């Protein structure tokens, strides 16, 4: 009795698996494509969801614009997005789902942690990716990977330069998340490039759900400049708890993780007496130019709650890929709609490594790329909020 039951269940399992394997073995997932398919994986839920949503919304917006304008020689684009919850172990399933869904080119991942997995999987299959926001230094090390954002090392270096120029011989504070690739990566480079005359008081946290930073604030309370290479959620909590303890004329200086801090529901940044600044390639408050256009279009379509530079960079990424494909076509390369991901990758690699330049983008007037995959553009210190009084 039991034997028969067990056998039946196990045999049905085998049947299921063999059925699974029977359908569509081998490559050629793009053969039936009627549009160019761009894939992206990002955190659409969880504590970094604001970034994933911004990227997906903005990429979709760029694609809609390109399609409305007739696509690439009449061929339209399509975006497929998957949710990785910023968890690297979810990535292999997402990646294969996108690949088997006909993905030809990718925006990679939104965040660094899953990106470390993505870069190698996509290298195996030779899929080109241009990530808007996975800032890890190791992300673009394979020839098929490029970044639209600044790498962590670069952000740390830039911040160190700023501190060296302005705080030589003084004491500054650093607050970082010791177990997160993004935060630790920036912090390490920051420290390595810092002038020895600058005194650093450093403090950190590690629990991803930590909300109580009383002790850390107490450590930094005499600092007038606090570098915080962390994401906006803990940063906003830190600032709220510190508002009466840190000196009111102090300055918080963050990296791209600060972006969106002025849009958090229930967090009133004007109640923070200290100045809040960040290093960025995107000015969400600019009065004119492509950045202004982007902000207007985005807020009209999706509202301001998820507006940040991750989205702006994703918007640029889609146009960069579109531009590079267009340029290759103009140079006589044939790009059919059902081109395989690998063939398209070779074309795009040649373009990006061969001095492809993007102009008039939202996140930079001129953008070029190293052959290594790092981006070259201007980063500026951008004031989110001045100190009160």
């Amino acid at each position, binding site marked *: *009795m*039991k*034997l*028969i*039951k*067990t*056998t039946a*269940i*196990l*045999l049905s*399992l*085998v049947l299921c*698996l*063999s059925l*699974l*394997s029977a359908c*569509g*073995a*081998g*490559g050629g997932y793009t053969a039936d494509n009627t549009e160019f398919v761009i894939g992206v994986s990002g955190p*659409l*839920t969880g504590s970094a969801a604001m970034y994933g949503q911004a990227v997906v919304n903005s990429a979709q917006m760029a694609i809609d614009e390109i399609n409305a304008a007739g696509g690439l020689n009449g061929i339209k684009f399509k975006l497929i997005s*998957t*949710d990785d*919850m910023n*968890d*690297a*172990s*979810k990535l*292999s*399933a*997402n*990646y*294969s*789902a996108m*690949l*088997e869904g006909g993905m030809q080119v990718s925006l990679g991942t939104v965040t660094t*942690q899953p990106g*470390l*997995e993505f870069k*190698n*999987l996509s290298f*195996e*299959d030779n899929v080109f990716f241009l990530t808007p926001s996975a800032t*890890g230094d*190791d992300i673009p090390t394979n020839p098929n990977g490029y970044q639209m954002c600044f790498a962590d090392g670069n952000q740390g270096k830039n911040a160190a330069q700023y501190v060296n120029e302005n705080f030589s011989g003084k004491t500054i504070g650093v607050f970082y998340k*010791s*177990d*997160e*690739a993004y*935060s*630790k*990566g920036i912090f390490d480079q920051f420290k390595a490039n810092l002038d020895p005359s600058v005194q650093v008081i450093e403090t950190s946290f*590690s629990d*991803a759900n930590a909300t109580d930073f009383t002790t850390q604030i107490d450590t930094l309370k005499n600092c007038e400049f606090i570098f915080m290479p962390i994401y906006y959620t803990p940063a906003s909590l830190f600032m709220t708890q510190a508002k009466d303890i840190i000196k009111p004329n102090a300055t918080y200086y963050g990296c791209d993780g600060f972006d969106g801090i002025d849009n958090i529901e229930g967090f009133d940044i004007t109640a923070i007496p200290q100045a809040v600044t960040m290093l960025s390639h995107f000015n969400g408050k600019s009065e004119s130019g492509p950045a202004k256009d982007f902000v207007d279009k985005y807020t009209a379509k999706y509202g301001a709650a998820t507006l940040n530079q991750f989205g702006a960079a994703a918007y640029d990424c889609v146009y960069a890929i579109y531009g590079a494909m267009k340029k290759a076509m103009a140079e006589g390369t044939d790009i059919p709609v059902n081109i395989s991901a690998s063939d398209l990758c070779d074309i795009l690699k040649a373009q990006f490594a061969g001095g492809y330049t993007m102009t008039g983008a939202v996140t930079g007037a001129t953008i070029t790329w190293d052959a290594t995959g790092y981006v070259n553009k201007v980063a500026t210190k951008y004031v989110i909020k001045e100190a009160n009084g």
Partner: protein
Amino acid sequence: MKIGNFKLRHYINYIVIGILTLVLGTMSLTGTRFDNSLLFLLEKVAISIILAVSLSLVVGFLGELSLGHAGFMCVGAYLGGKVATLLVPMLGNGPLTFLIALIAGAGAAAICGIIIGIPALRLRGDYLAIVTLAFGEIVKSLFQNSSDDSFGGSLGLETPRYDKHYLFILAFLLVLVTLAVIQNLIRSKHGRAITAIRDNEIAALASGTNVTKYKLLAFTLSAAFAGVAGVLYSYSNYTVQSAKFGYNYSIEILVMVVLGGMGSINGSILAAALITWLNTKLATVLTGDLAVLQNLLYALILIVIVIYNNAPALKGFRDKYNLGALAEKLIKHDPARVKDDKAKWDVVPTKISMDEILSVDLVPQDHDQGGSK
């Protein structure tokens, strides 16, 4: 079916998994290229089965709760991955490196199992749960904050990925090894000692069973196989990131064991395969805040199944409407078959204390022996 001492029902899981491995393995070795999604799924299923079967040894057969299974897996993944990284330049990324990494990972996890087991297993069961939980957090925190040169720190450890077309074959061979070791242990006299401890520790002690030794044996073995799963994980991913091995993952493995039916190896195998498949499917179907429905499902599985199977008030209902009885009605009853005492274990309190004796006396528990009245 019984041929000599060979009972087919004892070997059915080896046979099915063996055939599956043989068929898919031969196809892969002769050049068939499967989809990535299938290959990744097979790897994950194999890892889950090893985890679920090894946890089942502790939870289902020893009757103790371990919430740090992912922590032992983490140790195996990092140690095995590190050893593999160091060996690949010398020995190449072949089966030999894999074997050495496997031994290193499983060994390290086993040592951790002993270190954790010695203080916790002497105490009441709840302590083991909380100590293993703490252990998982300690391990996660240590690897997360390690230096970049040792275990990669926050970026995670970069490990060599085994060729994806062949890794699943090794993975399923390891599933067979796991089954062979754990199933044979359970069916040996040592296994009977382990289940005796589960059913009544004091009685087992009184009849001369070395309780501490068997508890430690089962717990360490379980940790070692979690380490094996960890090494497989490091081989099936390019990076090992400790965030993966948190409390939630331990719970997921526990859900597999509970769903499969505690004390049932085949049940654990099926539940592990089902949940892993569901995870990959649901991840692409449920997006946004709906993704959490998956966790809700796990929570409900834990609550409903455990209450249904264990609540003293539901005993009559259970006896009437369980799957076994249903099947028994459909198929001719075989009187020669000795009734398994397995289903009964959960109604026997692990430790009988005063109030439990009282309740046992007041509520007649065993309706089956009504004939002796």
